[in-house]
């Protein structure tokens, strides 16, 4: 109606709605951009109107334009206006627009906090719903922190529609504000058993998503999920749970064993393909996790493979694809069972669908054997020829190389064949993988000594036709192979048949068009070739020819000297001078060949890429030790800073058992000496027993291998595919071998026949029967001796889910409550809370670090702890139940549980957690009457000097509804309540919530303090209206707020060296107290001081500890706490003596209660 009214006005002639806009855009196909910019101008006009309907319409059009790619962030403020409209239809448009264009960088987003909170608590479920949906898209860390509590409340809403949404959005809140996970988790867990299937499924989703990222924290939920899995009939939920189990089984093998049976049942019973597929997937995951422990699950594997075969044979391409995908997972652990289906996979290689072909390629990787490698690669080569589109062809190329080179060329029996395959691959146009082929060529030529002669001949052919490679595909990576070719020809020039010809090929003018790094390699290897030729000529006493070669170099090298590439240029000019010098010597008939070839004497050995990293630190070498002792006067200073970097290392090192005993060490030392004696230049690898062909030390001992001469060594046609010939030859060779073998066998059999008659088994050709064409010497890559086998890759530190790696089984601490709606003074920005957050973060992370360091210890303790945790959880559950019952009949559910069992959260010393601590709460009673009970806690923050926050928990103890609560305090000279702007010093501050019967909630008030050195009390009054069936009454409750000196202290971590400096400075005054009759353990004592008095432990030795804290006005407070037989003495040092004596007095009171 509002819209119609506006339409009526004359100004609104141009006002079009979304439909008009869309129609307009369709009618202006030619000048769409112009039309839209015109529309945007109109929209800008409309947004200036006061009428909310017009604004909503404008924003609605903007959302459409945003989808078309137009930036609408300039309208962010108007979007917020529309969001705050009271009418749902407008509000929804506002939230939709916000969800599309708001993000963390939007500056006006902080204005929305209160609006969203209002909508969340709106009586209309749709207002709440739309706010939740919108919020899920643009929640920021600030919004998450401020609204976490409200959303958590909504998780217990009466309407499943809201509960479902609230549960889902909690996931986003966790991501943005990880501290909320622990407090919210119990309720989330409850939702797993929600009566509404939608809510239940939402909870399953959220927990599965959380668990997927950090599975180990959710292992304890496994029984619950197991129950759900066996009882639920919702396929969506089942799929999620089954997927989750897939993530959990690697961590808990026992779970896997339990799962197999229900999963196989599901596989047999379900008709839903999606569920079947996920079951198969999880069974595979289980089998993988079990494969090490118990191999006896062939039935399950068979079942999986069978089902997958059905999927792959299905006409539906989607099923085929998924079947192959799952098959490749089985392949990794049970290759045998997959290899049986080779026919199927090869068939899929011919599929018209590229995705399916790619998946089939993945599978091929595990299916090759010595027997079928050539056949499969041949097939792939025909695919390479046929393939359209470079991506698929490149994929094929990499797969061919992967398949051939896998596990150290295990399946290659004939390396000549492989080299020719590589050469054939260089013909591919436009491939990006030239460097891959080049790397393979280099690798094979270097590591397979027997193949070098052949490789060199192939490479020289390649160099000869380099113009073909370089000219047609200058820009692509294929010319990289020339890099390999040049190097191989140079390095192994002794194998070249016609070195002079190759030399000329490498000196052609065309070469200068190659990329710089290849030219550089050319130059270097030209000299190697030159050295070889010189040697040859001089031995033949052909001085004339030798001089001609030199002349050739002198003529051609200058073209490289002019190269734009610095490396090529530098090498060329250097070598040019060398050659000129040789020329002079030659002119005088001095033999030079020996000296020139001495430049390239020795052999290059392959070195493993990780070799450098794995060189162990030799015994007796301390990398941290000073090489030169520092000057004597700075000694004391040097010692302490070092401690920072040591962290806990020293202690850790002591605990570690010696890795090798003396004998072992001596043996190793001996072995090393021996080896060093043999190889003065190389760090040789220690012989590993797995390698069948071992590299013998020293070049002379290499068994030079006889190459099977049935294979022609001459290069036939330059660009003729040779690999086929090799396949043929190989087949013939194998055939011959088989015949021979059969002959031998027959003889044997005859012999047998003559003897006792035994049944003869059919002869099948297995992998082992095929002997390689050449006895190939695969040189292993060199590794330093004693290389450390482990090198874990660190986790990505930028993983957003790492923050959610939180132990959920620990009981909640007081400090972990969710922040609630706060009363803030006018200038309070968000910074103080931010600081709190980081402090809390550090605290919650700390015990975990500890855990990591003491893993072994932890494992032993695990059992004990698990029991403890279980006991605690039982306690909590009971607690929760009470709560639940109470809140069920009330409309507004309880916002915040009363302070819970605390734990030693602020205790700095991790070792203190060893024994259970008594429950602690920092909340103390403020006042109480029949209606209401008030407890409070005072906290300071380092960021805001002279300001403390008082958190008051108000608990309605009556059956009346309490509202209009107002808190007023009689300000003193020293302490004042911060009131909103514009109110006088006598005005009361309203409490921002109402309390239904039985509910408690927390309000926070900020006070400004002048002097903090003494404790003080403030009188105040809470007034409220209590409403019940009989009517409403105005009530009052007086209280006295007690600001102790302790409440001005803020837990601040302090390093021991900084602490020592502070004490040495001598600016602090000193005081001490002593308390007798203390029976509590020292650990608990420290925990108590930390908790109640906001101290942190700096160091602790036996029953003596130093502690530190800081006041909000920057006073340092240092303590030395010593425990005697039955007494505790506390020495304190502080920059203010009054503060110190007050703090110590308060501490004395606390300790006296122990």
């Amino acid at each position, binding site marked *: 109606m509002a819209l119609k009214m506006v339409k009526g006005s004359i100004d609104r002639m141009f006002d079009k709605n979304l439909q008009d806009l869309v129609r307009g855009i369709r009618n202006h196909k030619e000048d769409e951009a112009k039309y839209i910019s015109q529309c945007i101008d109109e929209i800008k006009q409309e947004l200036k109107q006061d009428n909310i309907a017009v604004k909503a319409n404008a924003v609605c059009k903007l959302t459409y334009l945003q989808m078309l790619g137009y930036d609408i962030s300039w309208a962010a403020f108007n979007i917020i206006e529309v969001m705050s409209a009271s009418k749902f239809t407008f509000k929804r448009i506002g939230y939709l627009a916000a969800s599309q264009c708001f993000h963390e960088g939007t500056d006006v987003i902080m204005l929305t906090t209160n609006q969203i909170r209002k909508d969340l608590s709106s009586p209309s479920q749709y207002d709440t719903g739309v706010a939740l949906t919108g919020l899920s898209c643009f929640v920021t860390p600030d919004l998450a922190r401020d609204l976490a509590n409200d959303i958590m409340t909504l998780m217990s809403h009466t309407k499943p529609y809201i509960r*479902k949404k609230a549960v889902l959005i909690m996931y986003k809140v966790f991501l943005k504000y990880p501290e909320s996970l622990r407090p919210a988790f119990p309720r989330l867990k409850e939702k797993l058993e929600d009566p509404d299937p939608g809510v239940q499924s939402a909870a399953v989703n959220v927990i599965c998503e959380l668990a997927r990222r950090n599975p180990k924290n959710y292992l304890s939920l496994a029984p619950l999920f197991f129950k759900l899995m066996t009882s639920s009939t919702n396929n969506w939920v089942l799929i999620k749970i089954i997927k989750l189990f897939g993530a959990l089984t690697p961590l808990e093998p026992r779970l896997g064993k339990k799962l197999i049976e229900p999963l196989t049942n599901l596989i047999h019973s379900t008709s839903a393909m999606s569920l079947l597929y996920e079951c198969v997937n999880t069974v595979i995951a289980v089998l993988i996790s079990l494969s090490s422990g118990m191999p006896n699950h062939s039935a399950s594997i068979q079942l999986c493979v069978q089902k997958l075969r059905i999927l792959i044979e299905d006409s539906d*391409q*989607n099923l085929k694809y998924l079947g192959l995908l799952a098959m490749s997972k089985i392949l990794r652990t049970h290759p045998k069972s997959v290899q049986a289906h080779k026919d199927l996979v090869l068939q899929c290689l011919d599929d018209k669908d590229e995705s399916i072909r790619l998946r089939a390629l993945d599978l091929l990787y595990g299916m090759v054997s010595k027997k079928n490698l050539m056949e499969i690669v041949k097939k792939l080569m025909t695919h390479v020829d046929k393939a359209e589109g470079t991506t698929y062809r490149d994929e094929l190329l990499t797969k061919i190389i992967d398949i051939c080179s896998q596990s150290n060329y295990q399946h290659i029996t004939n390396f000549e064949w492989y080299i020719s395959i590589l050469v054939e691959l260089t013909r591919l146009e436009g491939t990006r993988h030239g460097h891959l082929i080049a790397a393979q060529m280099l690798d094979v030529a270097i590591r397979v000594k027997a193949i070098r002669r052949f490789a060199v001949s192939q490479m020289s052919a390649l160099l000869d036709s380099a113009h073909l490679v370089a000219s047609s595909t200058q820009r692509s990576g294929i010319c990289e192979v020339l890099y390999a070719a040049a190097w191989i020809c140079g390095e192994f020039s002794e194998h070249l048949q016609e070195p002079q010809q190759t030399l000329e090929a490498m000196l052609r003018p065309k070469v200068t068009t190659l990329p710089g790094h290849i030219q550089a390699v050319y130059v270097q290897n030209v000299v190697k070739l030159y050295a070889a030729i010189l040697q040859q000529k001089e031995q033949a006493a052909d001085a004339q020819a030798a001089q001609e070669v030199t002349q050739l170099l002198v003529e051609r090298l200058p073209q490289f000297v002019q190269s734009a590439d610095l490396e090529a240029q530098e090498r060329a000019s250097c070598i040019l001078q060398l050659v000129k010098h040789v020329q002079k010597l030659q002119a005088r008939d001095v033999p030079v060949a020996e000296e020139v070839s001495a430049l390239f004497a020795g052999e290059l050995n392959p070195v493993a890429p990780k070799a450098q990293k794995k060189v162990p630190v030799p015994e007796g070498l301390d990398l941290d030790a000073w090489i030169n002792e520092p000057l004597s006067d700075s000694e004391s200073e040097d010692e302490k800073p070092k401690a920072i970097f*040591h962290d806990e290392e*020293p202690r850790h090192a002591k605990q570690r058992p010696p890795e090798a005993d003396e004998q072992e060490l001596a043996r190793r030392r001996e072995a090393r000496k021996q080896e060093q004696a043999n190889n003065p230049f190389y760090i040789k690898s220690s012989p590993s027993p797995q390698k069948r062909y071992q590299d013998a030390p020293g070049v002379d001992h290499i068994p030079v291998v006889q190459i099977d001469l049935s294979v022609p060594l001459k290069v036939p046609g330059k660009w003729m595919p040779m690999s086929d010939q090799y396949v043929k030859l190989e087949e013939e060779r194998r055939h011959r071998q088989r015949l021979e073998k059969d002959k031998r066998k027959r003889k044997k059999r005859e012999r047998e026949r003559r003897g006792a008659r035994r049944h003869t088994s059919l002869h099948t050709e297995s992998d082992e029967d095929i002997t390689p064409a050449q006895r190939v010497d695969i040189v292993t890559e060199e590794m330093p001796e004693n290389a450390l086998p482990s090198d874990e890759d660190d986790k990505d530190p930028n993983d957003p889910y790492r923050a959610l790696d939180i132990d959920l089984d620990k009981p909640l601490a007081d400090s972990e409550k969710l922040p609630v709606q706060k009363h803030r003074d006018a200038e309070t920005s968000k910074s103080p809370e931010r600081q709190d957050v980081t402090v809390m973060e550090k605290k919650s992370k700390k015990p975990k670090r500890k855990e990591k360091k003491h893993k072994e210890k932890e494992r032993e303790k695990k059992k004990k702890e698990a029991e403890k945790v279980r006991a605690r959880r039982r306690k909590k559950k009971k607690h929760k139940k009470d709560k639940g019952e109470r809140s069920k009949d009330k409309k507004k559910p309880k916002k915040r549980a009363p302070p819970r069992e605390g734990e030693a959260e602020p205790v700095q010393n991790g070792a203190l957690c060893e024994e259970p601590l008594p429950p602690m709460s920092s909340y103390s009673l403020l006042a109480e009457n029949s209606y209401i009970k008030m407890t409070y806690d005072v906290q300071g923050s380092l960021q805001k000097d002279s300001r403390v926050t008082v958190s008051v928990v108000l608990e309605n103890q009556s059956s009346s509804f309490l509202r209009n609560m107002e808190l007023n305090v009689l300000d003193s000279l020293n302490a004042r309540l911060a009131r909103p702007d514009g109110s006088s010093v006598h005005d009361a501050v309203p409490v921002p919530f109402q309390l239904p019967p039985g509910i408690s909630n927390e309000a926070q008030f900020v006070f400004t303090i002048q002097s903090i050195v003494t404790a003080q009390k403030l009188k105040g009054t809470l007034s409220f209206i209590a409403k019940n069936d009989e009517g409403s009454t105005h009530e009052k409750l007086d209280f006295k707020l007690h600001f102790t000196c302790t409440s001005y202290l803020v837990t601040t971590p302090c*390093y021991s060296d900084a602490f020592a400096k502070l004490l040495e400075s001598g600016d602090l005054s000193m005081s001490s107290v002593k308390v007798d009759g203390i029976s509590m353990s020292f650990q608990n004592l420290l925990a108590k001081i930390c908790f109640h008095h906001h101290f942190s432990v700096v160091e602790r030795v036996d029953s003596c500890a130093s502690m530190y804290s800081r006041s909000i006005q920057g006073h340092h407070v240092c303590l030395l706490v010593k425990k005697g037989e039955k007494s505790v003495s506390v020495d304190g040092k502080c920059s203010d003596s009054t503060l110190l004596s007050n703090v110590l007095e308060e501490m004395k009171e606390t300790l006296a209660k122990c």
Partner: protein
Amino acid sequence: MIQAILVFNNHGKPRLVRFYQRFPEEIQQQIIRETFHLVLKRDDNICNFLEGGSLIGGSDYKLIYRHYATLYFVFCVDSSESELGILDLIQVFVETLDKCFENVCELDLIFHMDKGGLSAAPARAVSAVKNINLPEMPRNINIGDLNIKVPNLSQFV
């Protein structure tokens, strides 16, 4: 988790676009274009899964799509979703649209952009599956390590 839902026509014009991760407008359009070119090349009778494009997600993500008459429905999901499940979901989604508009066609999507069902429709159909992924918030990691141990106490008095 579903990362994005894209609906566009045979010419690549976006008809309904929902990103559950923040991308600037230009990138969004680029993603739509890239996705469009990926799916356009594919025949109707080949499988409906695609390894993720380069812009959205990365290797953990898959594009799962269906082609109805003039519209492509593309869901970008990560490995926690069941591929077949998402295909069913697309079906359900289209059926929901069909119920809302009676014989849904491309024009319905164009003209009823603001219809209640539509803006929330993906979310509603997806509510069983939906979840969202957003970039990491910056975290302070190494401001003061609390857990420092020193072998002996410094002189106190």
